[in-house]
């Protein structure tokens, strides 16, 4: 039996019919058409589906769509403003911190949650924050560098 769900996605109100079994990831990709959030493992290990739920990073594959009723979701599509990349995105491009790109949306959102709470993270803080985001291309070094660069940029350095 389908149920009506109301929530906010990237600052827009949505009311959609969902199957109770739909995950937040299926809602985003298949019902709303926001395919920036990726499904890697589908069981919470890879972090490719990371979105912000009321500002906190979560694995969208481990959340039922109906659990987000009345709540605020930010996906990778809601990060760039007016066509301008977020400093984390720009830093990843410049540092070569993205190769195949599959993990990148999740990394950007995990990093955004970190920098929203901690404007001067240590390397250890950064590595901890993205420990739940697997990247099989870069070896992480350039991703960590890019997040540190973005933090500096956001602090006005």
């Amino acid at each position, binding site marked *: *039996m389908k*149920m009506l769900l109301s929530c906010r996605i990237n600052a827009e109100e949505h009311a959609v019919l969902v199957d*109770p*079994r739909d*995950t937040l990831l299926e809602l985003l990709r298949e019902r709303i058409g926001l395919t920036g959030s990726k499904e890697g493992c*589908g*069981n*919470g*290990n890879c*972090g490719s589906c*990371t979105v912000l*739920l009321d500002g*906190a*990073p*979560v*694995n969208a*594959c*481990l*959340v*039922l769509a*109906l*659990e987000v*009723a009345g709540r605020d979701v930010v996906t990778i599509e809601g990060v760039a403003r007016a066509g301008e990349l977020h400093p984390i995105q720009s830093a990843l491009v410049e540092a070569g911190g993205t190769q195949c790109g599959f993990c990148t949306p999740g990394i950007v959102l*995990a990093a955004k*949650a970190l920098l929203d709470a901690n404007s001067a993270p240590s390397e250890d803080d950064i590595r*901890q*924050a993205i*420990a*739940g*985001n697997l990247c099989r291309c870069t070896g992480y070094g350039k991703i960590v560098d890019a997040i540190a660069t973005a933090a500096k940029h956001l602090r006005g350095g």
Partner: protein
Amino acid sequence: MRNFIYVAPPSIEDAIGELRRGEARPLAGGTDLLPQLREGRRNADRIVDLKRIPDLSAIRPLPEGGVAIGAAASATSVARHAVIAARYPAIAASARLLGSVQVQNRASLGGNVCNAAPSADVVPALICHEAYAHIAGASGRRRTPLENLFAGPGRTVLQADEVLTALSLAAVRQRSATTYLRFTPRREMDIAIAGVAVRIDLAEDRSIALARIALASVGPTPLRAMSAEGLLLGNRLDRDLSLAAAGAAANDDAQPISDTRASADYRRSLVEVLTRRGLVACARTLDMVLDLT
């Protein structure tokens, strides 16, 4: 995944009513339950989301000095809670071991307990803090020491119409220290192949007034190292007793099996080493000078 109905009742009474209807399962963070449903390892035709019940997500100081952690409170909210961070650092640290930041933002301590994995990281420190499991069901409310909640791997003594509502911790006494140490093959995002929580309370004369040692991943359920605890009680760690003896007793108390992740012998050795290290960490917190030779 089998079709199910989703409900998010506003009170514990309503939740119990929902749990009595068909094959129902409570949902807290969902980080274990959703993959289990998807893979058919658990089944449900009714999912009862507990997160809209205010009491179940609350963390409250108790009048007698302890703290009650709502069963659905997220690991992140537990780790960041001022009272828990200050007085129960081993529990805050254990909550930060539950998978990634993404998982910690969803997973609850109550869910980690009810999933009843022998490797559950939050359980040993909870047992050391004399946690009680508070249970509500159709036949009323009851509580049980946490170590008695587990019936086997993935199984608890909860009835189908019962729900864990809170985990309560005893007040922290003076001259008390607790630590949780685990061994994982990888540094992050891994399952412990052995975990040991150690708590030591000292009397005024610096003898051990209370010792609790709880083990994870080395038995069908989390368990207490009772002979190691008995050996420590009343003694002085810095004078009467060698760390080696306490470690060896904990090694005997463990009941590990061999599986793909580690052999039973290796797990026993880890328990011995982690017990010694846990005692050293507690002793340091308590400003004791140990002969470590």
